[in-house]
């Protein structure tokens, strides 16, 4: 199990899908680079200019609330974001994140303690987030979700099922 390390980009509560990835690009932006370019456009224009692979997004409650648009999760993946640590997540965003291999970690104490720009480490083996304020445990994924992640995404996970029905 790997350990992820990156700088923290910190945001508030209810970061919604309209500011994560504006609706007007949902049908025009196709490739990875084009989708990546509009991430967080209406929240923090600095983000796409300065984000580094491995960086971590840290936010308050209800991260990703709003629309079902999957680009709200993939635009972060395509910018190299390794994880989102939040107090809580919008449920559709959370599923989209898991399905696209983006770690979405609900951990209120870490989300509150982490300061903008500081280096954060996520230890997936011990389920710990390390930052300047200390170590914070987070709950491991449920069996269903771990199965999806380990299979390499949801469609790969269900493919066996489809084949066995044929």
């Amino acid at each position, binding site marked *: 199990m790997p350990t992820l390390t990156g700088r923290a980009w910190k945001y508030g509560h*209810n970061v*919604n899908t*309209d*500011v994560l990835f*504006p*609706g*007007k690009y*949902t*049908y*025009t932006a196709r490739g990875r680079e084009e989708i990546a370019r509009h991430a967080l*456009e*209406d*929240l923090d224009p600095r983000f796409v200019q300065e984000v580094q692979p491995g960086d971590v997004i840290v936010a308050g*409650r*209800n991260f990703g*609330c*709003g*629309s*079902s*648009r*999957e680009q709200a*999760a993939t635009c972060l993946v395509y910018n190299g974001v390794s994880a989102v640590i939040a107090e*809580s997540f*919008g*449920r*559709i965003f959370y*599923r*989209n994140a898991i*399905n*696209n291999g983006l770690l979405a970690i609900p951990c209120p104490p870490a989300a509150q303690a982490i300061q903008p720009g500081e280096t954060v480490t996520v230890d997936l083996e011990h389920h710990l987030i390390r930052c300047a304020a200390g170590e914070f445990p987070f709950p491991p994924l*449920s*069996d*269903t979700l771990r199965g999806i992640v380990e299979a390499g*995404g*949801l*469609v*790969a*996970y*269900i*493919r066996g*099922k*489809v084949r066995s*029905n044929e």
Partner: protein
Amino acid sequence: MVAQTITEKILASHAGLSSVRPGQFITARVDRVMAHDITGPLALAQLEAHGIDRPFDPERIVLVPDHLVPSPTAQAAQAIHRLRAFARRHGVTFFEVGRGGIAHILLLEEGLVAPGELVVGADSHTCTLGAVGAFATGLGSTDTAAAMATGEVWLRVPATIRVRLEGSLPRFVMAKDIMLALLAQIGLDGAAYRALEFVGSTLAELDLDERATLCNMAVEAGAKNGIVPPDPRTLAYVEARVARPFTPVVSDPGADYLDEVVIRCSHLEPLVAEPHSPARGRPVSELAGLRVDQVFLGSCTNGKLTDLRVAAALLRGRRIPPHVRMVVTPATQSIYREALAEGLLEVFVQAGAVVTGASCGACPGLHTGVLGPGEVCLATTNRNFRGRMGSPEARIYLANPAVAAATALTGVLTDPRAVVGGEGLFV
């Protein structure tokens, strides 16, 4: 037998279990899977990329181009064609442009959802379908692709919050105001990962259009689903549309609820949610006089026949002043046709409004009413997040169709109670 809520009972029956408990992970059979022109192409691409070329059951899949119709660009046309081609190849139901409309309202109209059924859709407002006593929830494209391939979906059983609606709605107060009041009370995550079950005396006076508005905005509180237990009104609506057998389900006496929220509907006023959150609702009287550039009447929240009737009753015989514009977008073609027959569209056009074809239109900032920098819009939609309808510098206020019509008549946020009209619709 364990006493269960309507949501738990529907989930249990679709998972082949006698009962389920909140927090339990289940794999549930789906009765219907919906995708539209924004989320559908990505779902189909996922199937293709993984070599899955056959849906589990074409009859249970429905593809609805509703966001960008008719296509404003070649790219949008290509997205719809992808859905059309898939539908033709597999015999999947597809609603051609001009014969459909916003998927959630269309599925209700067409009887593609019935009490006790389980529906998933690649759109967050799929929860609208709870209006007929079904379990319906929104998913992303990848989850939807998986449901199309297998006919199943994994779900975590939500605990239920009961929302008790009490009393008669005052004049010009609608289901929209109930939801804005609920959101102001519990916040954008007040029902996160929960089911919202609507009960109470007010329901008796809410038609299916209004119940759809309740369930539609459940997701704005973070809910997994919104649901109105079926009653005789539901059955009358559904029996006129659904030929297949279905089993209505209601909550057991003694079922467990996580919480109960009471909304005293008889005390409500028309509300307006300020930018940039649907949870920022305030009485319209407190915001009266705020200048607006555009009024948008439409969307899966408030583009239904009941909504158009309410607005037309106030606009009839009047003109919209020069400094404000109004865009009216019926939710579906059938609502358009009814509104035409009833003379509602003539009222809008004579008043100086633009009437567009049925689509999601301006709500997600795609076309037919996108906002420019600095513009102020009063919209009957569900979200007023920054940038939702176009420019991030625009400001969106959410309200019901009566407030929208009253505001269009003055160009400033206006309490419909200050406008004479609408007799016969409100008592």
